[in-house]
């Protein structure tokens, strides 16, 4: 396949919020390209604008300048071609069961008749291992299960890019490791394109095929580090420590002080 242009094209975007006293520059001159099938991690300290960047790509925020193109089309508003998995456990609709939560977006999209939609939803729920909880309500699930459902819901729409905003940040360490592993499995199986936001260096190394390191004030991507470590990765994998040190140096924690 001849590559004409990347799947996602972020070109010199900035975002300035109207603060209470003075305008706040959240993003300044951010540019990067994303190819099909990449798992791009954006790593940055809190407050560097990484979530804002993702929200701009999702279409929740209007750009102050620059442009974002998905398959040559400029991003204007949120849409199911860029589904988002949020950090919070409250992203499922509490009045719908697990099955209904996954079915509902498919129904909105018009992804088929009743039986087809049920079948698709069932497949994605089983993909995240929650078939037994299909008819449970979100408040009956654990945090990890809720994030799994959110991933299933986002994947079922077959987005061009899956946007993940620190989805595992509120989980305990064990569950987080398990979900990282599952995400990698799903990514390898379906060859999906993912942008994954994190403030955790270890998570970025384990997941990312490329890692964009952000700095704050102004929020911008400082450097993009390719990650050629083999998979499955884990802490102590050959080359892991060197990469950790490199990313840590780039993050420049001293400057935040």
């Amino acid at each position, binding site marked *: 396949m001849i590559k004409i242009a990347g799947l996602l094209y972020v070109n010199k975007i900035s975002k300035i919020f109207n603060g209470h006293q003075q305008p706040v520059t959240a993003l300044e001159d951010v540019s990067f390209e994303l190819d099909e099938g990449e798992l791009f991690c954006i790593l940055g300290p809190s407050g560097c604008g990484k979530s804002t960047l993702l929200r701009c790509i*999702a*279409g*929740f925020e209007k750009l102050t300048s620059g442009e974002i193109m998905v398959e040559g089309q400029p991003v204007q*508003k*949120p*849409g*199911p071609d*860029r*589904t*988002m998995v*949020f950090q*919070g456990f*409250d*992203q499922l*609709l*509490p*009045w719908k069961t697990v099955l209904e939560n996954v079915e*509902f*977006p498919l129904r*909105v*999209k018009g992804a088929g008749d009743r039986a087809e939609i049920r079948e698709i939803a069932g497949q994605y729920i089983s993909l995240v291992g929650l078939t037994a909880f299909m008819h449970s*309500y*979100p*408040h*009956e699930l654990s945090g990890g299960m809720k994030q799994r459902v959110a991933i299933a819901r986002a994947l079922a*729409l077959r987005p061009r890019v899956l946007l993940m905003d620190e989805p595992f940040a509120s989980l305990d360490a064990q569950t987080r490791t398990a979900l990282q592993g599952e995400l990698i499995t799903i990514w390898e199986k379906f060859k999906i394109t993912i942008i994954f936001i994190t403030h955790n260096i270890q998570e970025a190394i384990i997941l990312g095929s490329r890692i964009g390191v952000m700095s704050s004030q102004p929020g911008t991507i400082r450097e993009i580090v390719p990650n050629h470590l083999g998979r499955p990765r884990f802490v102590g994998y050959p080359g892991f420590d060197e990469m950790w040190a490199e990313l840590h140096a780039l993050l420049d924690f001293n400057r935040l002080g």
Partner: protein
Amino acid sequence: MKEIFKKRLMFILLLTALWETVARSGLIKPQLFPSLVSIWQAFTAGMANGELVRNAVFSLYLIILGLVIAMFLAVVCSTFSMLSRTFGNLVDTAVAVMDPLPAIALLPVALVWFGIGQGPIIFVIVHATLWPMILNAVTGFKAVPPIYREVGENIGLSGPRLVLSIMAPAAFPYLLSGLKIGWSRAWRALIAAEMIFGTAGAHGGLGWYIYKQRYLMDISGVFAALIVIIILGVLVEDLVFGFIEKKTIKRWGMTS
């Protein structure tokens, strides 16, 4: 639930005992303070000859009709409030101006506009219930966590569809409490309106019944009708609203 019933039963027994003691003590004339036995007789007689039942059914019919109209208007107004800022401000102002105005104060106006009949009573009920229901709905919509809205927008929803399929269920606890307030305000407005002129149609309603029995100096009958109002209120509160809560916000874990 059982605990509540036990406590209520205790309370009712205590109250009846107190009532009967006062009634039998002879301190107050029985015409003014009837004994439970005579209230019970008036109650069974009213039920048996159908007068009490007919009036209760008629009152319920008026309330439900008024509430349905008010609910429809509240849904329309609060939906458009969410979609347009200007309309929202307009509705806010309307609620602020109209809500403090007691429904019964509008009855003379309603009589002039709609004439004698069911029209003015329905109007008064709608006025009594519409504003608190809009207020609750708008407050509820504003309290919806932004993440639900974003999830809705993310899957491609916008406009009225977003409001109805995401915002409305997300605000359901508020909508339900608005409906509860509406129900109790509707009763008040209805009974008052019926007392002022009951002869709307063939049956006058419970308010009219109470007024008429007082006129006939049948105080036991007055109390019998009051008991019917209390029973209806408790039944609707516990059974209807209790059932809705159990099937919705309790099941969804949306109670705070």
